[in-house]
């Protein structure tokens, strides 16, 4: 990236990959004393060419590389791709498979939100206690994943035509038990962290994004809902089993870091409700339709799928040319959209150096998702 010129009155800091809280990204900040005048995100710093890789894989092989986009939330990302492939190839999915997909997606969402919650709390200067609490509590979900799919992180469980396997015996009871445990733990989080006055001081009124700006800048996911816009692909364009499930879209009006945190927090509660509903009401039947190992596409088909990942709306757009591989896959990732919002926040607010990590982690960035 070409770096913009530095004005004489500011100091440019490469808030780069060596910084303890920056992750893999590189962000340039212009600071005037403690005040951040400008944020420049180096988008493309971790570019891995996932879109190009997908062009060189058959439709089913493509599931594995696309999961690498967001490791904390592989289920939702893979679902976006698999649904687009199904639409392009005209594959029907049995009802039970859809419910299992929803179950795994919600577990993935909780997993990802826990990670984001822990990081945002750590950014405010907590000794990383809460981050490790959330890490320990994710174990419950990871054990469930392991039992169901055989893998703890990237499970490649969704395939065009359904899911790879049915629920194992006694799995529904285990889901209910995990939900009960996590509910109890979230009450602890709420009491210990969210209601802590000092924590609130660090987050309230920081990085405010008004409703109009959120719409204008194209924010998505919890960032958009934290600014009071009631938008969730699961409700607006129900996919998988979400049409039959009962859940609320969480919104908060304030639009600051605290609101985003609370949105994530309440979304976890909604996801737990969904998990319980699925465990109670999942219909019977087959979990996959027969699909050839190397399905051949029809030429000139376009398919678009939208899913609500933990970070926001993911769009996967597939073009086919009649071959065994997609002709082109375009991915519209949520973090890319939110990173633009993050860059603008320094113009919309008075951002201090101390607020920068809090704001960055309140949009829950996943840089590999942003750069693809």
């Amino acid at each position, binding site marked *: 990236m070409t770096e913009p010129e530095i004005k004489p009155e500011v100091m440019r800091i490469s808030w780069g990959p060596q910084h303890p809280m920056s992750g893999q990204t590189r962000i340039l900040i212009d*600071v005037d004393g403690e005040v951040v005048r400008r944020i420049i995100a180096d988008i493309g710093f971790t570019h891995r060419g996932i879109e190009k890789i997908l062009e060189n894989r058959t439709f089913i092989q493509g599931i594995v590389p696309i999961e690498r986009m967001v490791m904390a939330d592989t289920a939702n990302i893979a679902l976006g791709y698999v649904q687009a492939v199904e639409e392009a190839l005209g594959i029907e999915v049995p009802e039970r498979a859809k419910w299992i997909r929803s179950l795994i997606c919600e577990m993935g969402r909780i997993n990802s939100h826990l990670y984001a919650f822990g990081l945002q709390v750590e950014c405010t*200067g*907590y000794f990383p206690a809460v981050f490790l609490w959330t890490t320990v509590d994710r174990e419950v979900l990871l054990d469930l994943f392991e039992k169901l799919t055989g893998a703890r992180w990237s499970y490649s469980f969704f395939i065009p035509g359904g899911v790879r396997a049915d629920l194992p015996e006694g799995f529904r009871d285990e889901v209910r038990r995990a939900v009960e445990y996590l509910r109890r733990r979230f009450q602890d989080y709420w009491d*210990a962290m969210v209601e802590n006055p000092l924590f609130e001081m660090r987050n309230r009124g920081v990085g405010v994004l008004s409703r109009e700006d959120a719409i204008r800048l194209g924010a998505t996911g919890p960032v958009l809902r934290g600014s009071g816009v009631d938008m969730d692909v699961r409700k607006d364009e129900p996919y998988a089993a979400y049409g039959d499930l009962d859940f609320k879209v969480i919104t908060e009006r304030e639009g600051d870091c605290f609101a985003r945190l609370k949105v994530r927090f309440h979304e976890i509660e909604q996801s737990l409700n969904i998990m319980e509903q699925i465990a109670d009401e999942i219909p019977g039947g087959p979990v996959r339709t027969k699909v050839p190992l190397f399905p051949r596409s029809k030429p000139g088909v376009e398919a678009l799928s939208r899913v609500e990942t933990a970070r926001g709306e993911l769009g996967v757009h597939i073009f086919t040319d009649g071959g065994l591989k997609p002709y082109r896959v375009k991915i519209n990732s949520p973090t890319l959209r939110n990173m633009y919002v993050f860059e603008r926040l320094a113009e919309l607010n008075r951002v201090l150096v*101390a607020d920068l990590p809090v704001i960055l982690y309140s949009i829950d960035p996943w840089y590999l998702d942003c750069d693809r």
Partner: protein
Amino acid sequence: MDVVTLIWLYILGLVRWLLHEAPLQVINFIRSLPTLIPELLKWLWDFIWFNFKPLAQIIVIPGLAFILLFAMIAVWFERKFLARAMLRIGPYYCGKRSGWLQVIADFLKLFFKEFVIPDDAEKVLFLAAPVLLPTIPALAITLIPFDSNWVLFDAGGLSLPVFLAIAGLAPVIPIFTGWAANNKYTIIGSFRTAYLYISGEIPLVICAAATALLAGSLDLVDIVEAQKPIWFAIPQFIGFLIFFVGLILEAERTPFDVPTAETELVMGWRTEFSGVLFGFTMMAEYLSFLGWTLLFIVLYLGGYLGPSLFGVPLYDHIFWMLLKLAVIVVIIVLIRTVYPRLRLDQTLRLGWNYLMPLSLLNLLMTIILKWGLII
């Protein structure tokens, strides 16, 4: 008389003395032994006490051994305690599960590590800072009375002002270091230090003045002795709270670790230190924490005075001082687990808007109280 006769006379006299006088003198000497030995021992003890007391003070308490032991135990306790809060076990393998050897192992590791001096750094200042940093709080600790006759550097009626003056030097070094390291994070960190110390130290000094006023002396021993009827934590309750907040602020401990905020400024003004240089800055952090905590105990919690049970005061001893120190350390580590870091502006607002007026109010109340007592 010739020489031979003289010699014979001398020998005769000697024999006579041996036969008549010497036994009497030996008997007298043996008779006086019971009174002589205690005198001899007392003289020996005085000799050792006079010559070795300062040595003991320098080496044992409050000198090197105490400081190193405090740093070791505090670091060990903090790591173990925080690990528990984080659902971990903490140091485990070095030193049989309790992990107490881990601290020594880490110190050795730091000591033998290569340290890097940045090319653009101001080398003399950069290297001087880690040496000066632990010196200043260690110097201040020498003024603390651990018992009524156990003061390493007895500044008499000036000990409180001298302590505050020495401790007031502390922020100067981080400020220079931040500039000398020639790094953007260190420079921001050092300016944060400058802001922070000004807002924190003035309320501290005012509160200390109020206690001195109440005790009627600037001598730390006199201030402790004046707390015999009641510890100053109760008549000076506002000052007690302000001093506690200010002490965390001065020691750069968690709610106020703004200058070395890890998630914001990598390591603040300490970013460029590596190896043993970093080890010394860590040491300095614990020492300044120790120094202010000891002053806090002396001013408000009765120093070496024991608590009185049912009106009967217990024996005054250094032990009470160490016990109080341990309690304060536990409370401050506990605070680290449950509070996030404040922003710089919030910390300054706390200092100037709340601590400062309250400390002035406290001073005013003390003056009125004292005036009332005199009348």
